[in-house]
């Protein structure tokens, strides 16, 4: 029994000392391929003041992707074709200029096109931030009327067919 107590103490020290050594062993695991998109909930563009001008709205996103290359784009969720594609509309009017979007300092891209405008590209990323800047231009002589509504599909896409 007298021998047992020091033995327990030595074992304790060995176990404690051995624990950091496990950090040097090979570790690994299987990560399933995935796409994950989170979006902040923006509020705005329901109405516009009279007179020409530019109005902007920020949408924060976070992206997780295991794909070698993935793209972020914004498309009209209400229309796939026609004159209302990419345009804010109320029951009374359709704005003349389309909504535009960009990420970072890239040029704005209109959303009234049938091809998804690619705003940003990513390699494998985890919780990468991307801020989408929406712009609506109101022309001189245009009179925005009513309450505008539009659903936008924030799209995270694998690019390898």
């Amino acid at each position, binding site marked *: 029994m007298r021998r047992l107590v020091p033995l327990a103490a030595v074992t304790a020290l060995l176990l404690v000392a051995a624990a950091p050594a496990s950090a040097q062993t090979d570790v690994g695991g299987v990560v399933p391929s995935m*796409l994950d998109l989170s979006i902040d909930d923006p509020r705005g563009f329901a109405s516009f003041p009279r007179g020409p001008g530019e109005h902007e709205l920020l949408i924060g996103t976070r992206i997780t992707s295991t794909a070698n290359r993935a793209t972020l784009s914004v498309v009209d969720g209400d229309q796939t074709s026609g004159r209302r594609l990419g345009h804010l509309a109320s029951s009374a009017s359709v704005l003349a200029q389309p909504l535009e979007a960009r990420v970072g300092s890239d040029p704005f891209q209109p959303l009234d096109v049938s091809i998804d405008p690619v705003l940003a590209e990513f390699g494998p990323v985890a919780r990468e931030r991307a801020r989408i800047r929406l712009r609506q231009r109101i022309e001189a002589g245009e009179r925005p009327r009513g309450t505008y509504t539009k659903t936008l599909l924030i799209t995270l896409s694998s690019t390898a067919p």
Partner: protein
Amino acid sequence: MYRSKLTLGVVIVAGLAAAQLASAEGPSAPAADAAQAGLSVTPAVIETTARRGASSLATITNSTGRKLRVTVRARPWRQARSGAVAANRRRALRSVRVRSRKFTMASGTSRSVTVRLARVPARRSQYGALEVVGRPVKRRRGINVAYRLISSLRFNPTAGARRLRLGAGSARVTGRGSNRALALRVRNRGNTVDPVGGSVSISGPGGGRSGSISSTRILPGKRINLRLISLSGLRKGRYSASVTLTQAGRNRVGVTRRFRIR
């Protein structure tokens, strides 16, 4: 006395070991929490062999904090001459069926959908996109945002039906200044999307240059302008390019093309 010391020793061992484990697991736990906080689809590439009735599962998880109305559809790809692909929102991939196409997901829930190849096309393979759209149940005035995730669907041909064939067309100079590059028209005459790569060597009055071609997937039957090599810094004049295209680890096409830098 000795028994109590022994007990104490065992308690210390257990305590220290537990502390070690806790410190090892500590940092990873928040990372796991942070890894998902939106709408996700797993896997990003759904791949199986093209047989009638062949099916695979995709798992959709809603961690957005909002109730979502989810729609899942199989779409064909559109491939641009640059090689970039986008899911065609106006069309459906008719030979592929999705079970549980529309449903509502509460926050914090997961759901698996089955993707099945109902009919094997004549080409013996089928490629497309799986589109997952999640719209918040409540719609309000102004801008409403919805989630759209596009993953790849690959129903590859069986080993016996696999065809790897490429067609090479003319070479052309694209871009200007530092973006000037040589591109080759390449058509995928096979029935797979195995990446096309290879090597290129050019020679002319401005000297020679060689390099490897970045791998690009080309849809069966599609033709793209495959970027071969940068021409930045090369003098004006007539050049010759020797191109070898590889696919699935073998040389498929070897061509020589002449081009001019103006």
